[in-house]
């Protein structure tokens, strides 16, 4: 596998604003990369820099081995799908598709043949004579995609291409884009603020915040071993529960602080006694059991059900969100026991937010209950 896109120490300044901070990224040929993060994190700036629409301030940017820092967009041989699709309103679908070919001097008949081939694979054949304003949102999206495909570019750049579609179509197009990527064996960079899109579509996810890469890796690695509290909270839905905790005097226990309620859990290894940490537990990793049967008990605040899953929010401070499949018969005000698989517990340094790695791969929870429901504070 060869590297298709390489970024070494890339920085981008807008005046005094530091939009991209020392970005290092290596993308292999054929990889689907998702850039994900909250708005303003620099993901779109990074994508636009790859397209050549923004000039990077310092660092090195290579596409297919060639240095691209000062190369104008038209000579980069990348294709971009814009959030607004950016279809040329005064051209028919066919003219939109063949525009890039015609600029390159491809003969009209040849360009039309190429457009027909692409349109056949994306289901646009019957719309070739229409103008963009006569198409539905989903059809416009397909035209935007086809316009990129027809060029056989070195890389596809997607700038939140699904955010203007309704929910059902978005799920469908997600699969379609991924299938397309696989069929073309393309290299794709996909910007999104939706972590579900990133997780489901990408081979490699890059989580960004405030112009820096917080973590990058395979989707499930990010889910299983988030490098810091930000990534832990960003990846996964509903978001991970964070509970302030203090390491006990023996250095092998951690006390979760729910305000009135306290829970004491054992750690698989020693940590500096008295240090404060943040414990993270994903809602789907907490099991609801009968009162007294789990690691600790909590009172139930409110319960929401989607039919297939039940979301339970505890009446503790901070709140715990628990996701259960099915429709557990739990109601507001009940006391429930919670069981947590010790490997699913994440610990973060409270000051830096960095992940604290378990030395032996396990953070254990002591079997007997140490939780004291309100009124029985230890």
């Amino acid at each position, binding site marked *: 596998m060869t590297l298709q896109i390489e970024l070494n120490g890339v920085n981008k300044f807008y005046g005094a604003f530091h939009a991209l901070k020392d970005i290092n990224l290596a993308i292999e040929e054929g990889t689907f990369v998702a850039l994900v993060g909250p708005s303003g994190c620099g993901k779109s700036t990074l994508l636009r820099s790859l*397209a*050549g*629409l923004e000039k990077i301030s310092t660092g090195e940017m290579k596409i297919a081995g060639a240095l691209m820092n000062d190369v*104008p*967009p*038209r000579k*980069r041989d*990348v*294709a*971009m799908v*814009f*959030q*607004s699709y*950016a*279809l*040329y*309103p*005064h051209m028919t679908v066919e003219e939109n598709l063949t*525009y*890039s070919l015609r*600029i*390159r001097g491809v003969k009209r008949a040849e360009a039309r043949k190429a457009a027909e081939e692409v349109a056949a694979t994306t289901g646009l054949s019957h719309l070739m004579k229409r103008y963009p*304003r006569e198409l539905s949102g989903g059809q416009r999206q397909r035209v935007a995609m086809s*316009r990129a495909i027809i*060029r056989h570019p070195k890389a596809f*750049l997607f700038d939140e291409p699904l955010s203007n579609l309704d929910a059902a179509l978005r799920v469908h197009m997600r699969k379609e884009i991924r299938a397309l990527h696989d069929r073309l064996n393309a290299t794709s960079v996909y910007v999104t603020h939706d972590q579900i899109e990133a997780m489901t579509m990408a081979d490699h996810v890059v989580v960004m915040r405030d112009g820096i890469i917080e973590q990058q890796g395979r989707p499930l690695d990010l889910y299983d071993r988030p490098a810091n509290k930000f990534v832990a909270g960003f990846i996964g839905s509903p978001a991970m529960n964070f509970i302030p905790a203090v390491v006990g005097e023996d250095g092998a226990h951690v006390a979760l602080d729910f305000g009135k309620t306290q829970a004491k859990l054992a750690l698989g290894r020693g940590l500096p006694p008295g240090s404060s940490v943040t414990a993270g537990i994903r809602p789907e990793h907490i099991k609801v059991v009968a009162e007294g049967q789990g690691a600790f008990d909590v009172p139930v605040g409110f319960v929401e059900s989607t039919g297939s899953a039940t979301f339970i929010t505890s009446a503790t401070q901070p709140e715990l969100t628990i996701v259960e499949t099915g429709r557990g018969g739990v109601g507001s005000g009940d006391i429930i026991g919670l069981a947590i698989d010790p490997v699913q517990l994440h610990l973060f340094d409270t000051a830096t937010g960095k992940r604290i790695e378990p030395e032996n791969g396990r953070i254990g929870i002591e079997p007997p209950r140490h939780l004291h429901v309100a009124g029985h504070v230890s």
Partner: protein
Amino acid sequence: MSEQFRNRLMLAVALVLAAIYLFPLYWMYITALKSGSAMFATPPKFWPSEPQWGIYGDVWQSRNMGRYLWNSLVIAFGAVALISVLGVGCAYVLARYRNVWVDIGLFLILMLQVLPASLMITPIFVGFSQFGLLDTPRFAVILAIAAKSMPFFVVLVRATFMSVPMELEEAALVDGNSRIGAFFNIVLPLARNGILVSAILIFMQAFGEFVYSKSMIQDIELQPASVGLNSFMGPNTNEWNNIMAYATIYVTPILAAFILLQRRIVSGLTSGALK
């Protein structure tokens, strides 16, 4: 007050106001058709009893209107061409780049628009005469009109360009076009309506321009219709019907064009000329 009554009242008010506003135009048309005695009759007649249709041909012949109108057309087309070529580029740059200097430039451009022609004519006359531009007086007038009307055009066309999304241009760049190619292939076709409408408005202004032409064009052979109309009037003029016939011939084509294009002009001005 019922809704229907209110609507009718509003309509009546609108009709009365329109009638007051358009009365001079009406008076021009009917005075042209009146005979010499009917023109000065008291009380005045609002409809000519014996319309003098032959007056148009007579005035056209006697005043040599073909030459005047030709000069008007030359000046108007020249000004529109010059303004369009220079103004489109200027408007595009002002639409696409935002910084302090662009804001200052825009402010200065609007300042130019504020200055009246009668104020500007003296310095322009002195300057042009020193450059020898007055030897080609119609060109000098074109230049002066272009300077005067350019701001108006730039401001209108800039708004049109701003309504063309930047992303379309970026898509063209990524698709393999150069900046200039993207401008001509994508931006210009999309801004066409707005540019056309602005150009028509400039044309109408230039077609009726008087101050610069009167001051700079001494040779009667080169004078436009507006100056010709002015020279028609003297201190003891009483041939109002002939003057009105002249005015009728002069403005009717413009009026007709405006009425025909009216919908496009209004929509072009309000919506940035884009679907």
